[in-house]
Structures are given as C-alpha cells and as structure tokens.
C-alpha cells in the first residue's frame, strides 16, 4: 500500500512555490530557488547596467544585483510601497534579487496541477511562464526563473 503511494508521489510530486504579487497578479517561483525575502532597501544604481537591472544591494557584505521584474515582464512601472520586497533567488548559479510588489505565501502544488496555457505572440517574456495553476480561486502564474534571462544576460549580470 505504501509502495503504491510512494510510486504515486514519485510520479506526481508535490512542489512548493513562493507566491508574490506584481501588478495585481499572483506569480509563483519554486521555493528551492528562493534564499530569502528582504524588505525594500535602497538600491544603488549601476552606471551602464542593462535597463532590466535596478542596481545592487549589500547583503551582509555580498553584492547582489536586483532585477526590475516589472520591466522584465513588460509591466508598467510602479512606486514602491511598504509591501514591496526583494526576493533573493538563485538561478543559473547566480544569486540575484527580484523586486516584487509583495510576497504572499508558500503554496503546495502537485505537478499534475500545473497546466500550460496557449502562449501566443512573439514577445520574449512569454517564455518565462512555466505554467499556470488554479489555486484559491485565482490563477497562479508560475515563473521559470532559469528562463528569466538569456545565457548572455546571465553572463552580463555576472560581470557587473
């Protein structure tokens, strides 16, 4: 009996996702890629950095690049609020921060619950969407952080 249950869980694993808000929509990122969540602090701009880079912060002596998630997702800009957070993530062997409107919760999703949606158009940012999931009466948009930037852009970030 337990073996059957084990096989089932192996075939359909439960994944944890950290959800955050951006432009009144809820997004999710794999919890395994999240290192910590920081309150908004002063971000030092970096001259000559790409437009999707807000700047850098000092995280306990380490320099972390903060990405402008809104720009990356082609969303309109917005002012920071008390709910604004910087989510420190690890992707492509790099530690970076992404600026979000708010961090909501951690949700548990089965792999089978993650669904694809018809992705249309030629916008590059569409590839960031790993899938969607209907949870708590809303549609959760799951983001593939690895695809958040191209290999060249990841390399460019490393050089900042």
């Amino acid at each position: 009996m337990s073996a059957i249950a084990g096989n089932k869980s192996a075939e359909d694993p439960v994944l944890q996702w950290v959800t955050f808000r951006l432009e009144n929509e809820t997004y999710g990122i794999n919890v395994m890629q999240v290192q910590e969540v920081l309150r908004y602090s002063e971000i030092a701009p970096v001259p000559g950095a790409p437009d999707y880079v807000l700047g850098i912060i000092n995280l306990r002596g380490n320099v972390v690049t903060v990405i402008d998630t809104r720009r990356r997702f082609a969303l309109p800009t917005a002012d920071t609020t008390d709910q604004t957070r910087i989510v420190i993530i690890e992707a492509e062997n790099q530690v970076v921060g992404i600026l979000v409107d708010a961090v909501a919760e951690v949700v548990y999703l089965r792999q089978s619950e993650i669904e694809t949606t018809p992705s249309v158009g030629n916008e590059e940012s569409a590839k960031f969407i790993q899938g969607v999931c209907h949870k708590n009466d809303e549609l959760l948009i799951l983001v593939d952080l690895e695809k958040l930037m191209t290999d060249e852009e990841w390399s460019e970030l490393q050089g900042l």
Partner: protein
Amino acid sequence: MSDNAKRPNKVDGVLQGYLDDLLLELPGSSGKPAAAERYNRPPAPPAGVENRVQPQAARSPQPEKPAMPRFAEPEPPKPVLMPPVVVAETAVEKVVADKSVSEKSVAEKVIPIAPAAKPQTELAQPAVALKVAEAKVVTPPLETKPVARTRAPVVPSAPDVSKQAVNKATATSVPEATLMSQKNDTAAALASLNWQSGGGVDCLIFIVCGLKLAIPLPWLGGVHRVSDKITPLFGQARWSLGVWQGEKGKLTIVDSALLMMPERQRSLQDEGYEYFIQLDRSPWAVACQQICDTVKLDQNAIKWRGERSKRPWLAGTVIDEMCALIDVPGLLGLLEDNRRPKRAGAHQS
C-alpha cells in the same frame, strides 16, 4: 432581427461599406468561394456522402477524391461510396446501440429517405453501410439553438461538436464507444450546417466594436458573461486578453477587435467587453460587447469570401443582417498558428 437592424441608415451604410471592403480587397471573392466550400457549400453536382461524419472505413475506399471541404454537408447517400467491409458493420452496431434504436427501426427510417434507384454496385455491399449514413441523417438537431435564443447570461456549453471530435471522427482508428457518440454529435453538427436546406443554419449574432459578427451555433462552444476575473499573462500578443478559469478548464480570451480588424485600432481592453464566446470546444474564446440574436442563414444569404482571402476568420458577409460570418475552423487555425510550442514538463489542461 428587429426592424431597426434592417432599416437602412447612415450607420448601416458605413457598416455595409466596411463589410464590402472585407470582401472587395480579396481578389478571389467573386470567383471561387473557398469559405463556402469550407462551410459546406456543396458544389454542383453534389459531392455525395463522403464527408467527415462518415466512419473512416466508409471513406477509405475513395483515395482518388479531391480534398474534401472541411464541413461537408450530409447529402442523400450514394450507395456506391459505401465500403464493402465488415468494419462498417461493427460501427453500425455501435451507432445503433448508442442511439438505442434497433436496426429494424433505423431501416424503417431509412427507406423513405433514399428510395431512389440504387446502382448495381449496391448489391455487393452490406446493407448496414447504408444504415450508417442514414442513421446520422435522422439524428436530432443540436440543443444549442434554444439555449442561444434565450440569451441567457451564461449559456451552458453546447453538445460535443468540437473540432477535436470532428478530427477524431475522421481518424483512421476509432475503436471507443465514446467516440461513436462523438461521431453522432458531429454528424448532428454537420447536418445542421446544411446551408442549402430550407431551414438554413442558425447563427448567433454578436457585436464587437460596432461590427456585427455571426457564428454558426453548431460551432458555438458556449457563451459566458464576464464575471470572474480574467488573468492577463505577460508577454502575449496584444489580442490576448488573458486566461479565464472555468469549471471545465481554462479559456484564453481573444480581443476580437484587435485580431479581426486591427486596421480600426480599437481594443476591447480599452472599450470593455461583457461576454466571451467559446469557439467550438477549443480553449479559445472571443470577447464581445453585446449578444444580439440568433438568425437562420441559408446559402443565398451569404456572400462567401474568396479563396485568396487574407482573413481566415471570415467565411463571408451576410447582407441582410449586415454582419460578417465567422469561419470558426479558420479562426481556430489562425489562433493555433500564433501559438508557441508547448513547454515540456508541464501538463496540459
């Protein structure tokens, strides 16, 4: 339709001009009515019964036939086209079983439909082959008609008349009994698309940014009022309004104004929309601002688009109703052409 809709006025003149432009810029509009063929405008002489509602076994012996129209209407069956294979008999048994109609009763219904002289080749054919086609002819019409006429805010979904079901009906291997029921539904849908019949085809008329559009009810998946939130996805085409989660799955809502008439530079995102209409059983739905009415359209009421049309979504225009008739399969094809490849590792809805 109301009298106001038919009364010529300035607005109608402008609309008519726009509709004419849709067709006039298409050089083939007056020549070869491709949309008419797609919507089962039967060529002369009639093509017979080799349409999509037939089991594959019935169509397989005719490889020399040209490409069939996408929605061929069921014509009075020509027995010469029926396959002398045992597979058809099995299919008939399933059909009869599903419809809870005995072979005898089916045969009784068949007799008055095709009493004409039968070619000699029929002698070599199993009688059950005839029953396949004619059992579909007597299939009751779709239940979508009364639903749409009620103009209910949220219309229950139409019977299984999906493109997928049609495709399955034309597949080479269709062993499941459930598929047979889908075939029956498909047959009903195709039968209802008989534009030349006396009754015509029921179409639902709706309005998008002042343009009246008509969609045949057999290809109407459902009408939903915009109540729940539609979640926009970033990085999508401009005409993608977002994703709506329904009880039976997600629908991608299409800004029909931007998609169908981009030259007008009007967007439902800006002007608002009240309903969205699911295209067949697909995951696509087009947004609209107003649901008007249902009308019966026959062959002569439609000015079919030419085969060189640049608008695959347009089947033709209806002069009397001053509206454009949507080619649902063409529109679905257009949408699917714009779809990115699916990602690996994620499950499809």
